């Protein structure tokens, strides 16, 4: 009886001993306050004397030649855990500048990772990219090519595909330091500018992951939002920066984003346009509420020919003066016709613009690949060939506009 009890207690001790190694926690424990949570990253081209400025972390000075695309200047925005006011009651909106909720640091490096390693050497906590929401890249760097940037962020397992990547006019670093009034965190403001853009129908869904997918596709090129910081530290979406492979080749005008959205038939719709009525100085402004588009592909003379039918549902929003009353169907029909005419030309212009650069951001090539595989296999097959052929492809655009409502005013 007694030995039995003894055995029992030994067994118990053994079981408890087994759990001991488990209690030490895991190798990967990293407390939240030991992490440097990176919210935003800006990447610029570093100047001539950057090599002198660089500390010798990834390599000793002079050992590695500066890469072909030049050195980079990376800025990061790190969240300061205690400083971020949570919830209301702490004086909604930030009256202070961004420096108080985030910490902005900049470093130079030969490559993106090299720069991050230089940065890691300077701060105590481990850089954590799990909450990275915005990557801002300067126009100059984008024109040199994004191979390195895309490779690094694709390889990193922490980065989310729902983050935004954008191209800034001028230096990207400025956007990291900006302190917009509406949000407490500058990057969150940048992000919500674009996210709201989607909701308001002013910008296509173009998350990092979608950009990557489009860039990879054989019959399509990627594009990114092109932004500029304004005087009041607000951010304007200036257009679409479109790419050829990994290199930025051009920018559209802001209104041409609407052209892209219309051609792709993206909903919800949200752009307004000024329409000049026939034979008068009268102008009205209409707002698109619903878009629809249909591609039709034919092979004509050995080249792809697209017929694009765009369908716009429109509300009248504003009339500039009083000469013409909006009170009969004829007038409305004439607005329809006028806008159809204007839009057709507008859409064709955008397509022509991208054709000149050989950058098919609409994915017409994907359409050829999907619908005419025989033709694709015989004549195109590679991305390079499509980039060449896109310039020769022909397009017909037919637009149907229907003004449906005229607001609360009766005439």
């Amino acid at each position, binding site marked *: 009886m007694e030995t039995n009890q003894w055995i029992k207690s030994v067994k118990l001790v053994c079981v408890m001993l087994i759990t001991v190694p488990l209690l030490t926690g895991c*190798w*990967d424990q990293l407390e939240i306050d030991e992490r440097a949570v990176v919210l935003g990253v800006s990447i610029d081209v570093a100047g001539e004397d950057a090599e002198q400025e660089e500390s010798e972390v990834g390599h000793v000075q002079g050992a590695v030649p500066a890469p072909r695309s030049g050195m980079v200047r990376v800025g990061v925005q790190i969240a300061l855990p205690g400083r971020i006011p949570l919830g209301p009651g702490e004086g909604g909106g930030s009256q202070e500048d961004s420096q108080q909720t985030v910490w902005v640091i900049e470093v130079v490096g030969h490559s993106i990772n090299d720069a991050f390693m230089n940065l890691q050497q300077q701060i105590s906590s481990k850089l954590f990219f799990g909450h990275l929401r915005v990557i801002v890249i300067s126009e100059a760097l984008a024109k040199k090519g994004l191979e390195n940037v895309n490779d690094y962020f694709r390889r990193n397992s922490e980065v989310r*595909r*729902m983050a935004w990547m954008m191209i800034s006019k001028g230096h990207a670093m400025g956007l990291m330091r900006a302190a917009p009034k509406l949000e407490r965190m500058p990057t969150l403001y940048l992000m919500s500018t674009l996210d709201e853009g989607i909701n308001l129908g002013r910008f296509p869904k173009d998350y990092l992951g979608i950009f990557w*997918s489009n860039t990879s596709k054989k019959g399509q090129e990627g594009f990114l939002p092109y932004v500029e910081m304004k005087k009041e530290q607000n951010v304007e979406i200036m257009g679409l920066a479109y790419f050829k492979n990994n290199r930025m080749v051009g920018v559209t005008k802001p209104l041409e984003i609407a052209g892209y959205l219309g051609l792709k038939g993206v909903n919800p719709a949200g752009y307004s346009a000024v329409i000049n009525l026939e034979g008068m100085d009268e102008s009205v402004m209409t707002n698109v509420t619903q878009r629809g588009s249909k591609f039709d592909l034919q092979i004509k003379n050995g080249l792809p020919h697209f017929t694009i039918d765009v369908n716009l549902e429109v509300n009248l929003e504003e009339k500039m003066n009083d000469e013409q009353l909006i009170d009969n169907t004829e007038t409305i029909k004439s607005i329809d016709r006028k806008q159809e005419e204007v839009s057709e030309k507008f859409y064709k212009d955008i397509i022509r613009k991208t054709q000149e650069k050989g950058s098919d951001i609409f994915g017409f090539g994907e359409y050829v690949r999907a619908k005419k595989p025989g033709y694709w296999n015989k004549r195109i097959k590679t991305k390079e060939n499509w980039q060449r052929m896109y310039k020769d492809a022909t397009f017909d655009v037919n637009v149907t506009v229907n003004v449906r409502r005229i607001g609360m005013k009766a005439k």
Partner: protein
Amino acid sequence: MEEQRQITVIQTAAILVSTIIGVGVLPLPLFAVRAGESAAPLVTLFGMAVASIGLVLITWLGMRFSNKTIIQYSEDIIGKWAARLGSLLIIVFFAVLTSLTAREFGEVVVTSVLKSTPVEVTVIVMLLLAAISTRNTITTFAYIHHFYFPLLLVPILLIAFLSFKNAEVINLQPIFGNDLKGIMMGTMTIAALFQGSFILTMVIPSMRKPEKAMLASFWGMLIAGGLYLLIVVAAVSVFGAEEIKNLLWPTLELAKATSLPANILERLDAAVLAVWVTAVFTTLLSSYFFTIYAITQLFRLADHKMFSFFLLPFVFIMAMLPQNIVQMYDIIENVGRIGLYITIGYPGLLFMISILRKKRGNQNGDESMDKIG
């Protein structure tokens, strides 16, 4: 065979599904896309068809010899020594499969979640877990699979359907692909992902109604194959074939790009990995169980428990052999394809000979059968 025959048809189907769905789901779209680009779903379907042939063969054999496993009835069919050689090959193959599964699991975990944990630790923890669980009887084994089955089904369905929000149909076209060169190879690679279904031959002798084994394998294949197809369709339609070629684990990337409605969770990869661990566990459990069960029967022992820890060091060392992740995937693809000779070719051979020699396990006593061999 003294055990009670307790395993039901549903349990058998659950065993098949949770055995088939395992580590393979993460690189699956990559394998399929490498083979056929936009024809990836078609490649998956072909792979499923090839795997079904193998499964039908072993189910038929199992029903013909409903009291015996493949280790036992192969002796009746092709004679003692030839059969022993065959059984040895099967055992070695499944031991290798177990180790590769464990290693692949370890690589995923170390790359994406536990970056500073040594890969040896994740592998050995998983193997230990499997080894301990194999010390149960086959009935408990069936219960374990049955229990985890819904846990495996729901998240995969959830991700697939949520991600269809971002899908573009054009990515799936043309459904016959632009380039058909790689389709044969790819079909075999995908078929190899279904090899876990071989566990059925161990389960049939313990089924309550072995005559319904065909029904179980039909449902098992349909659900597992359906899930595979769904994952491939979702991944290809969201990313497009070319982008998938850039991704080592497209399914994980899919989970990263998918968010629950209303931003409850903005990325699902952590949740998916958690569930995927159970999926890997059930797969590992099956191949481990198969290996030791087969060894037991080859040596005509009664108890399989003693082998569960005996095997551990061998499996572990084999798991550590691949030098890097690229080499590991080369090995996995090659071993998988070679394995098809064992999991489809060998049963096919047995099946033909058993018909030619008019062997049947059910009517006659087992003793008389042994003599002939």
